[in-house]
């Protein structure tokens, strides 16, 4: 009977995020998900207080906009939802069925949306939400008719970049191509260039101060010599691996720059995770040791701190990276569902 008693007593004691619409602008938002359902939670300070939360789809991606947030939902539906800075609902737009939206950027007065499974970039007016002419993606789409277009980036120079995986889905498992592509556009939507990059780019694009672009290229689940963190100069058309998978012993899930060091989150061969600190100057690679590193899903810089999404089943939440001790804090910032993304609103940047 003891478990029942414990369960009944504990019912009223469990710490919970407030189930209310945030009443003020958050300093941080977190997308939490078990891939079936999800929520967006709002936090003040550096995770000091919870301000409230709103529902989200389970398989979703949240993007910080100049005046709010966009939520791309796929899997059960294909839609984009816009929220203001307080996470108040503004507008929801249906996207083509099974288009699988992956990223959204703001370009002048438009929103551009990349689609994993349709050969086009959708565009909407950011003021009226009216549909604008899409950009035809036939030239960067592979034979299966799906481009596997993923992350987008607006560079400081005003040019736009789109990562295209070009995986082959004709078999029973996705097959990575020999090379994937980085597509370059002008702000007006003109195709400027199709750069060849290592196979299977994954995650987001980070631009360095000198205009070079960093993104992970994982090729396959195997540990590969031609996979790792790629640094690409779109002007010189040159690229190099900052660090290869063979040194990391796994695929890169996420990475973040902080004080000239790169924090790299890796999926190990046994599907656990590891977090590394890598100094490109000295080539020093340090493992963030200790407990809590086995189920990490993201690493994000929030002002003067680095945080990770700890997706450990039943013990999920946010943890701070202790950069001096090279370990994760024991203190867990509890979330309702396992965190998937941590975002700093644009106004806070």
């Amino acid at each position, binding site marked *: *009977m003891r*478990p*029942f008693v414990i*369960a*009944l007593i*504990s*019912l009223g*004691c*469990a*710490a*919970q*995020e*407030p*189930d*209310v*619409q945030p009443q003020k602008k958050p300093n941080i938002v977190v997308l939490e998900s*078990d*891939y*079936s*359902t*999800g*929520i967006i939670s709002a936090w003040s300070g550096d995770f000091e207080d919870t301000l*409230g*939360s*709103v*529902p989200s789809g*389970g*398989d979703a991606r949240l993007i910080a906009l100049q005046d709010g947030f966009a939520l791309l939902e*796929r*899997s*059960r*539906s*294909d*839609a984009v*939802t816009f929220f203001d800075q307080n996470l108040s*609902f503004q*507008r*929801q*737009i*249906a*996207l083509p*069925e*099974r288009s699988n939206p992956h990223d959204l950027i703001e370009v002048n007065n438009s929103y551009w949306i990349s689609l994993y*499974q349709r050969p086009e970039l959708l565009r909407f007016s950011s003021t009226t939400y009216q549909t604008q002419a899409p950009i035809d993606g036939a030239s960067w789409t592979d034979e*299966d008719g799906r481009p596997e277009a993923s992350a987008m980036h607006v560079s400081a120079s005003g040019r736009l970049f789109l990562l295209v995986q070009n995986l082959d*889905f*004709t*078999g*029973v*498992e*996705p097959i990575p191509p020999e090379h994937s592509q980085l597509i370059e556009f002008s702000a007006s939507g003109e195709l400027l260039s199709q750069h060849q990059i290592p196979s299977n780019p994954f995650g987001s694009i980070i631009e360095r101060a000198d205009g070079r672009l960093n993104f992970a290229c994982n090729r396959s*689940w195997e540990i590969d010599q031609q996979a790792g963190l790629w640094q690409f100069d779109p002007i010189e058309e040159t690229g190099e691996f900052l660090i290869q998978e063979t040194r990391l012993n796994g695929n890169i899930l996420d990475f973040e720059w902080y004080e000239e060091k790169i924090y790299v989150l890796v999926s190990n061969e*046994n*599907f656990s995770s590891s977090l590394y600190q890598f100094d490109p100057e000295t080539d020093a690679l340090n493992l963030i040791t200790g407990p809590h590193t086995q189920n990490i899903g993201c690493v994000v810089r929030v002002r003067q701190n680095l945080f990770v999404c700890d997706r*450990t*089943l*039943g*013990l999920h939440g946010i943890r701070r990276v202790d950069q001096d001790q090279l370990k994760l804090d024991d203190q867990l910032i509890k979330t*309702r*569902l396992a965190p998937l993304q941590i975002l700093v609103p644009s106004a806070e940047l």
Partner: protein
Amino acid sequence: MIFLLIAASIMQGPTQRGERSSSSLRADHGEQFILDPELFDGSDWEGILGQSLALTVTRNASLMAPLDLSWRGARTQQVQWSIDGLPLGGVLGGSAGVRSIDPHLFGGLTAFSSSGASLDAPIAGEVALRTTQKGHRLALQWDQINRKSAHLSSRYGGRSLSLAIHQTPGIFRYLDSRGTARDASDDQWVRRSNNDARRAGILWRESFGKGFVARFLLTSLAGGVPGTGSRALRQVREEERLQLAHMSWQAPKGTYRVDLSALQRSQKLDDPTGEFSGLLGLQPRSVGRRVYLSARRKKRGGKIAYEWVARSFIDQLSRRPGPTLNPASGYRVQGQTGATVQLWLHPKWRVDSWVMLGRSHESSQDLIDQLPESLQNQTVGPSMSIWSPGLSLDFSQRMRLRLIAGRRAPTLLERIGQHGGLRGNPELKAERSWTLDFKLKNETKKWRFAADSYLRQSTDLIDWTSTSFGRAMPINRAQVQIAGLHLKNQLNFSKIKISAAYRWQGEWAQDSDLDTRYKRLSGSPEHRLRMITQWQTNPWKVGLNLEFKSARFLDAANLRRIESSPEVNVLIERRWGQGWSVKTQLFNATNTEQYRLAMLPGNMVIDVPRQDRWGHPLPGRRLQLGISYQERP
């Protein structure tokens, strides 16, 4: 005088009234279900099993959807289905595979909650089907959405034959939110597509005398896999076939019994545009086979009776994920033995105690290698032990107290299945549970009352959960506690019969030992209430069924809470002569076509189509006409 009667009873030992020689000692722990229920849509399992509030059936939108049910908080795969004692779990898909079997092929169904009839002690319970038929029967049914079914069963001496066919175009209207739940302005009423299904089955039972009985079952199911309402699948088609041959020999009075059987289940899924998986080459075909042998010894004598059973089976699964790949195979061997001892302490007090021990060994690496790389990790060994002890104290079949424990190894399907939207999980651990239940029953000529209360704790409960893109996968849920109360009351007057049933079920699920947020299991309402009134004066019968369900969650995280209106079903029946009747039934008489869905947090409430647990839309009001002939021998 009373003293003499008791003394005589003790001297002679108790008698087992109405016991079949083939029955196990614990056969009276079960509850009989009617295979042709009134005021429920008895054309399929949902209506038949839905007679009991203890069972929550969360599929009834498509014949092609695997049967999904919850029984005292235990899930579909924890229910053992058996045909004349022959278990259908493992490669045969258990409750999921039962969709291809028409219920009307059988002569009876007994449900054993939290345990089984004999050797099996499944965590949820056993649904035991009997192949024996009584007399001749013919029934034809048609409904407003053009669902048609016919079944014929006939018995001559030791030979019985049943045929059943069921066909549905599955077209009805539903509200499509177009994937924009927050924006009702673009919602539209559309017609369900790719929801057609055809099912046919034949069961032949032949008694050869001297205790030899053979059974042959052939079934076929084919149709469209329609997907959810807002994300319909347009071209996914599936076929499933089941063949079973079962021979048993039994000594007089059932003292000895031997069963030998061979079964095969083949499945084929066509997904030409990769709607289900996104992968154009993933067109899985699989064949599961089972060879089964069991032996039983049963003996009654004075105040003690015992039963000993041993069984062994080999499950083999062969799977070809796509036309360009070679098939891979795996197998599982399982051996079990167990005994039940029944002791009469007094003519009215009886103690049943039983234990089952078993071990399974699996060779499935080739099948695991076929799974996506992200699912190939496995830390679970190839051999697992299973066990289940139980103890029952029974007073005159009016009161029963039971304590049951169980440990179940995941099936091959749960570990390495890969079929359409279902993905196995090689990381699954065996689940364990214990149950304490207490039943009271009182019956007079005019009044029947039953109260059933239960407590269950499950560790590493195997629960199917939906993942991205409409797929489902089994996971272990660290701790699940269940508490429930089920009350049934029935009053019989000369022309009127009134029955009411209520079920409360508390559920507290944790995803790890450290999880502090207790959740309800998905698809399971906390409160259910049903009231049935029937008025009968020959040749007419009129009935009304009202059912209320409290809100339930669609997801494991308890963030999507769905509320439904009460459902009303109406029956009008006219009988003729010696067994003919015409039945008109109106299901969902209030024409509920929408449910209210609260999206948490924030409690944003939206309209969604009336749907089952997996988001498959359900039809609105439906009129069903049926004509039947039943000859009682």
